[in-house]
């Protein structure tokens, strides 16, 4: 499904919508802390009313973020098979109420993450993680991987065009020996080209002063809006948790 996401964008349009909306301009740290807290708490709720409240908050966040709903819906479809499988089986075994609860709970967790992914520039997201003290080896790998993914997916789309020009339409089924061979060789070719690029890119990075860690060039400071978002989401999460645990009847 990731294919569909990249494929549906033009150019490097991964961050197509992040720059346009107010949500995209917030500090990544605040968004990460607020949304992660909310999602973690939403994932453990078992009370139907509380799950409904968390889903409402998630939908409110989605609408308020002003991100295009069709775009989010397309991303949401990637998670649907699993959610559907789980909800239907729970529905069959434990009744319709539990099935709907499962659907609402998983959606309440998935939607905020989609808003975060679509409404934040990828670089800001990784830089935010670094500023939140995530080990440098991980954030540097993430930043490098993101850069290479854009490069290699262009390479793959060029190869797809070339295959299509020769009349190849994809393998028909698992017994289509020729079709699968073409797909395997395409994947192999992507890897070979990536190995060749790796050393060149390393040399390039060294020339630009790369020293184990990608240093974020952009500066970001926490403003009042960021604090409001993070504390708002965390407060909702805290209330939901206390009610769930029975502290407040």
């Amino acid at each position, binding site marked *: *499904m*990731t*294919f569909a996401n990249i494929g549906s964008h033009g150019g490097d349009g991964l961050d197509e919508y992040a720059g346009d909306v107010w949500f995209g301009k917030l500090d990544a740290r605040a968004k990460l802390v607020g949304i992660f807290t909310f*999602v*973690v708490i939403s*994932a453990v709720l*078992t009370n139907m009313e509380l799950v409904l409240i968390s889903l409402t908050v998630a939908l409110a966040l989605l609408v308020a973020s002003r991100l295009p709903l069709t775009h989010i819906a397309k*991303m949401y479809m*990637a*998670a649907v098979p*699993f*959610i559907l*499988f*789980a909800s239907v*089986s729970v529905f*069959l075994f*434990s009744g319709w109420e*539990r099935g709907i609860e*499962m659907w609402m709970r*998983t959606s309440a*967790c*998935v939607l905020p*993450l989609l808003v*975060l*992914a*679509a409404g934040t520039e990828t670089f800001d997201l990784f830089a935010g993680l670094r500023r939140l003290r995530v080990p440098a*080896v991980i954030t*540097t*790998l*993430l930043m*490098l*991987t*993101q*850069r*290479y*993914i854009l*490069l*290699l*997916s262009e390479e*793959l789309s060029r190869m797809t065009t070339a295959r299509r020009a020769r009349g190849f339409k*994809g*393998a*028909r*089924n*698992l017994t289509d020996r020729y079709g*699968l061979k073409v*797909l*395997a*060789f*395409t*994947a*192999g070719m*992507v*890897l*070979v080209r*990536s*190995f060749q690029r*790796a050393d060149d890119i390393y040399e390039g990075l060294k020339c630009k002063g790369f*020293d*184990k860690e990608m240093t974020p060039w952009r500066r970001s400071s926490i403003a009042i809006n960021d604090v409001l978002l993070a504390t708002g989401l965390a407060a909702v999460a805290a209330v939901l948790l206390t009610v769930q645990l029975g502290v407040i009847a």
Partner: protein
Amino acid sequence: MHIPDGLMAPVVSLIGWIEFLVVFAAILLLSGKKIKEKNLPRVAILSAGIFVAQMLNFPIGGGTTGHLVGGALFAMICGPAIAIIGMTVVLLVQGLMFGDGGITALGLNAINMAIIAPLIGWGVYSLLNGLSAKKTVPGKAVKGIIVGAAAWASVFVAAAACAGELAVSYAVSSGTFGIAATVAVPAMLGVHAIIGVGEALISAGVMLYLWSVSPGSITTIDKRAKALPGWKGVLSGTTARAVTAILIVFALTLPLYFLYASQGRDGLEKTMQDAGTAGEKPLISTPFSYGQNYFSALFAGILGFLAVALGAAGILRLARMRTTRETGP
């Protein structure tokens, strides 16, 4: 196979996170040299390569398509340690850039796709390589079959682990989270047995392509030609390490098993009770018991996990000593 948040029972997700952090930290410590500055771009580009290769869809019948998981392929190209780190990066990218997977479920997703899949893929690949070791290097067909078997096993075992996690979640939360074993196990295994065939065919194709076009890019040292024949070959260093990889996967499943076992009688106990043989005094009583509630079970599970991990580390050490002796003067 990306599990979303809110599907698994909190305690199962927590175990997943603990196991993931322990394994990931151990890998970072053990392979510190491999992940040095010069190798960072290489690991990143391999992750990107696997991520992009995952975009290639193949048909699995009935109008549906599957795609490569790539864990086994990654491990066969550059060894299990780098594969675990690289696959974790792939999962993080998928989660953060596309919202695939989740936060609480990241531990379990990483266990299934970034740890179990590469370890099983690499383990099976090394074991079969050891078994097929003869004086002559095996032909293309044999190589392809070995790679295919490893790739299929990696997907199948990862799916089985995922099904197990769903079933345990269901059992410990009395149906609030997870999916009942009677649905989860056949559905996950059935679908992934077929997806595994696609994975096997594509992985075999990719490896054969790499062997013929760019053999230098496969950094796992191919010791086939040097390996000893027969059982001596099986007991050589690579094989012992492959067994270790599979033992680690086994150890990872232990805490969940004990958690599950503590929730009710297991199949054997139930059969014994039905047959009226339950309640007899056991022949041997063990110093440890996995307890009556799930905290003591969790404790016993973690103890078991550590015991198997230590055993595995011991084998690894023996294997290293053996290798040193072989290469010594």
